[in-house]
């Protein structure tokens, strides 16, 4: 799919994953920028939510329970004795996402708590702590629910682009002999997206709906009234 973790960093001030949201997918610079801002919020919200629920936003699995010594420390501080990666709260306060380029983001812990984040994520390969991963390593994805949300955002960006900078091949689409042939042509733009994702993106774009309606092509979509 379009989303790819291209690089990870583990320094004293930065433990992070760099993610390309548009790997192999074309979209306008503005559409990529808008999508990256939305994706950044979706990622931060999902990571914080999953950490509250003591599960990994990467694998989707529950974190290993705390041992008795760790529980004692957290109890003493008035913190819940669950592996939510909160003691002072600094590390999760420093969790952030930056839009670094056209359709590119960097998610991680930026500040003095970065080494603690590497302790949990082991991006450096040097941590001896139990893995409680919330940042994807190179080539890894977020759990499927987060990926689905992000893919929809990217599909909407592609839809925005095909109405502004690119041109859909009207004649080829009109000559499509079947629904699958029709969606295969659309997939030249919406690379690797499912029919449902393409359809949702189309029906959030009035210009595209007009384009398809004026050419009697809405019949290929499930949500169409035609």
């Amino acid at each position, binding site marked *: 799919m379009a989303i790819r973790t291209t690089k990870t960093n583990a320094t004293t001030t930065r433990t992070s994953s760099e993610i390309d949201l548009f790997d192999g997918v074309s979209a306008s610079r503005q559409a990529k920028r808008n999508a990256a801002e939305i994706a950044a919020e979706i990622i931060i919200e999902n990571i914080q939510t999953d950490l509250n629920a003591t599960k990994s936003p990467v694998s989707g699995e529950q974190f290993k329970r705390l041992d008795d010594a760790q529980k004692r420390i957290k109890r003493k501080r*008035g913190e819940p004795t669950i592996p939510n990666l909160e003691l002072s709260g600094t590390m999760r306060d420093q969790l952030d996402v930056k839009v670094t380029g056209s359709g590119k983001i960097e998610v991680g812990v930026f500040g003095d708590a970065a080494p603690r984040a590497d302790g949990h994520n082991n991006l450096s390969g040097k941590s001896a702590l139990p893995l409680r991963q919330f940042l994807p390593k190179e080539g890894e994805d977020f759990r499927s629910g987060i990926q689905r949300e992000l893919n929809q955002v990217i599909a909407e960006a592609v839809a925005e682009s095909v109405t502004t900078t690119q041109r859909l091949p009207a004649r080829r689409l009109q000559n499509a002999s079947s629904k699958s042939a029709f969606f295969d042509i659309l997939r030249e733009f919406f690379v690797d997206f499912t029919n449902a994702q393409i359809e949702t993106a189309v029906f959030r774009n009035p210009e595209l709906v007009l384009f398809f309606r004026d050419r009697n092509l809405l019949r290929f979509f499930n949500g169409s009234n035609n």
Partner: protein
Amino acid sequence: MAVTINRRGLKITIDLPTLERLNPDNVMNNETKDRLGNTALTAIKSRVTNGLSPVEGVPRFPGYKSTRDGSGYPRTAAIREKFPAKKTRPVNLTLSGEFLSLLTYRVDQLGITIGWFDRRQRTRDLIATHQEGRHPHVPRRQILPLDEGNRFVASIRRSIKNVVLERITRIINS
């Protein structure tokens, strides 16, 4: 609007019935306004219950006092007795649940207004404390973008925008 170019020239067809149906009153009918309100409230409350402000540029809600020294809110005897389920994390502005449940929307002529419409002193105090940050000992935890230059985070703006776009495409497609 369809545009056709051939050897004889340029032909522009304007679809007047669709254009008429796309008037603002029809796009922003009461059903759309309700969908807008519900979508926005769901997104706002989802972030707040997870300790995040829905306002762009505002960091995660600051921790409670007890998370720093092991005493104080919400670990006081009174709170523990009355609300034993209240935890120190996440900082979600939820004790009895009343404050967030009172955050609602009203449909009006132009669109919707989101806010607290409850006039009781208790609610006004909570708004002053959390939304406006007027309590001397409690950090501000802003929920609505009411300051100049404020706006919702991009993901909430997208959810709201999609409600309107889906309404427009439904009209075009009807």
